[in-house]
């Protein structure tokens, strides 16, 4: 077990714990920088991972750090996307200005949604965000002059200061830059009094209040910042998908973001990124499985004879080819993670690290959950 030797307070405050951790991240950055040369065909998909990473970051700040679970975050993505396209294509504003304005507009929407948050806790807030998302979906469908209504809107390539970022490589680096910027800014906030106040609100509102945290102000700031990040992600998202339609930003997408945050591991930025990778890769995995799983079943049952194997293959194939299977799989994974690994992928990674650092003295009951009894959180 390595001992981290601390010689100044700045080390605790800094972004990286020590030189070793910094070198790991530098290595990762180098890998990401040369990735375009190694896997040029997948760059678009990896850009999507970065955009999802921004989305995960946004929801992590709100749900993981401040404890305000939002079930309608896709609505902010939609607002950011449509706003950016409107500003940059219909109004002809410069790209960076448009993104900034879209982020500001989305932040405003975030403040609006946050208003019920100031009075209500927990589930009621989640319901309010869900209602908001449904309202926004309707608005996007019907505001034809700005959003193109149900017909949708085509999105051109990104052009910043005269340089086109339409090519997959350029877009990849653009998304990577924005993700890194988002990570840096968020980490800055989290190690400052604002971030501590957010964590305090999550863990004990009453104690936070008595320590001088203005609950209303900080919850509003959390909503605004989270929505602003989502707005920026929305702008990039618009360029990536190329064609905006209101039925992209559904409740299912919000649930995917929630899945991202829960599966990744609530309460850590690493979790947001792991979750983003997971959720971005999931459709790829599912379609891959759709092609190969029937074959496996067929081989297994082929033991009972060729015709049995074929019949099973056909049946399983018909089962997995249904389009309605995807949301079901998302739901299943979400449920399974809540039941069996509530700390998410990052939590599992920490547990693995702990196992190896304590080997062979690791106690198997280290993370065993204590029996807990339910108490109503609603008082009479």
């Amino acid at each position, binding site marked *: 077990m390595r001992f981290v030797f601390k010689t100044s307070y700045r080390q605790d405050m800094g972004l990286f714990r020590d030189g070793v951790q910094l070198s790991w991240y530098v290595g990762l950055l180098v890998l990401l920088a040369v990735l375009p040369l190694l896997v040029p065909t997948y760059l678009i998909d990896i850009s999507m991972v970065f955009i999802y990473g921004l989305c995960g970051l946004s929801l992590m700040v709100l*749900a993981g750090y401040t*404890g305000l*679970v939002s*079930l309608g975050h896709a609505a902010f993505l939609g607002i950011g996307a449509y706003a950016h396209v409107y500003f940059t294509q219909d109004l002809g504003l410069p790209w960076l200005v448009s993104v900034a304005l879209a982020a500001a507009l989305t932040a405003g929407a975030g403040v609006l949604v946050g*208003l*019920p948050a100031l*009075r*209500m806790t*927990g*589930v*009621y807030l*989640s*319901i*309010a965000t*869900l*209602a*908001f998302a*449904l*309202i926004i979906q*309707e*608005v996007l*469908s*019907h505001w034809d002059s700005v959003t193109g209504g149900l017909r949708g809107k085509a999105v051109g390539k990104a052009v910043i200061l005269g340089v086109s970022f339409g090519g997959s490589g350029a877009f990849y680096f653009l998304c990577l830059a924005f993700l890194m910027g988002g990570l840096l800014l968020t980490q800055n906030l989290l190690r400052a009094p604002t971030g501590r106040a957010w964590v305090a609100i999550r863990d004990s509102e*009453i104690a936070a209040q008595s320590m001088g945290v203005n609950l209303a102000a900080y919850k509003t700031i959390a909503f605004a910042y989270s929505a602003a990040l989502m707005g920026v992600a929305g702008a990039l998202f618009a360029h990536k998908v190329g064609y905006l339609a209101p039925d992209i930003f559904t409740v*299912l997408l919000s*649930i995917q973001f*929630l899945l991202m945050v*829960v599966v990744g591991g609530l309460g850590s930025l690493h979790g947001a990124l792991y979750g983003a990778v997971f959720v971005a890769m999931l459709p790829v995995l599912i379609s891959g499985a759709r092609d190969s799983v029937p074959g496996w079943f067929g081989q297994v049952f082929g033991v009972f004879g060729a015709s049995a194997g074929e019949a099973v293959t056909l049946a399983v194939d018909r*089962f997995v080819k*249904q389009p*309605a*299977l*995807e*949301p*079901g*799989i*998302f*739901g*299943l*994974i*979400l*449920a399974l993670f*809540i*039941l069996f690994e*509530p700390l998410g992928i990052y939590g599992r990674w920490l547990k693995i690290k702990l196992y190896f650092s304590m080997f062979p003295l690791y106690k198997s009951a280290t993370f065993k959950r204590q*029996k*807990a*009894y*339910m*108490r*109503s*959180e*609603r*008082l*009479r």
Partner: protein
Amino acid sequence: MNFAQGDLLMLGAFCCYMFVVWYHWGYWVAFASSVVTVALFGAALDWAVLRRVIGQPQFAVVMLTIGLGAIFRSFASMTWGSEIYTLPTPFSARATRIGGVTVSHEYVSIIAGTVLLCAVLYALFTYTKVGVAMQAASQNQLAAYYMGIPVKRVFSLIWAISAGVATAAGVLLAPVSLIDVNIGFIGLKAFAAAVLGGFGSIPGALAGGVTIGVIELLAGAYLPPGFKDVAAYVVLLLVLAIRPQGMFGAVGRKRV
């Protein structure tokens, strides 16, 4: 707090549809059977899945039920198909004239069924031992254990009843709103009604429901298209922002 409640309603409606249209059972037989089936399913769900998350913070249960809801919708889509179906009932397309107003039997059945259900539930929770045990178990589980209440069985019973009521609601609703995979989202409007009326108050919930219905009608008549659907949600947001306790309810605070 169960986000899958609306989806249980949807499952109940589909179940009844299946009994009536696929197996050609009579309406009332199918109604009763589907209530029982989904109630058993609810109890099984509690036994298998929900028991494990009982002591965890509320949002874990919320996420779990969201996941379950998605699974239910997916399952329904795959078993029964993703189109819109109609449920033939003894009340369909029949109406009576009462004092100059044409009253459709379907709507009467809904109102009568709702009132009956509310009365039965109210009686259950207030006057029977089982009902009181349910309230105790949901407020303070450890204390309920100490008092000799078989908490696990009580919770399964709660889920069974809740699923059964959802089924009944779904079957009552089916003639009016038609059955498809997404009717579960009406649960959100129901929540809006409960919030408007105020939590902890059953007459408040009824009043809230009526109010939202009226607001929706007015929105459909006077506002541009598309506003009718979201009227309930706007009301929900406004109520939560301005007067969270609704018309008749009370809001508590954690005791320190």
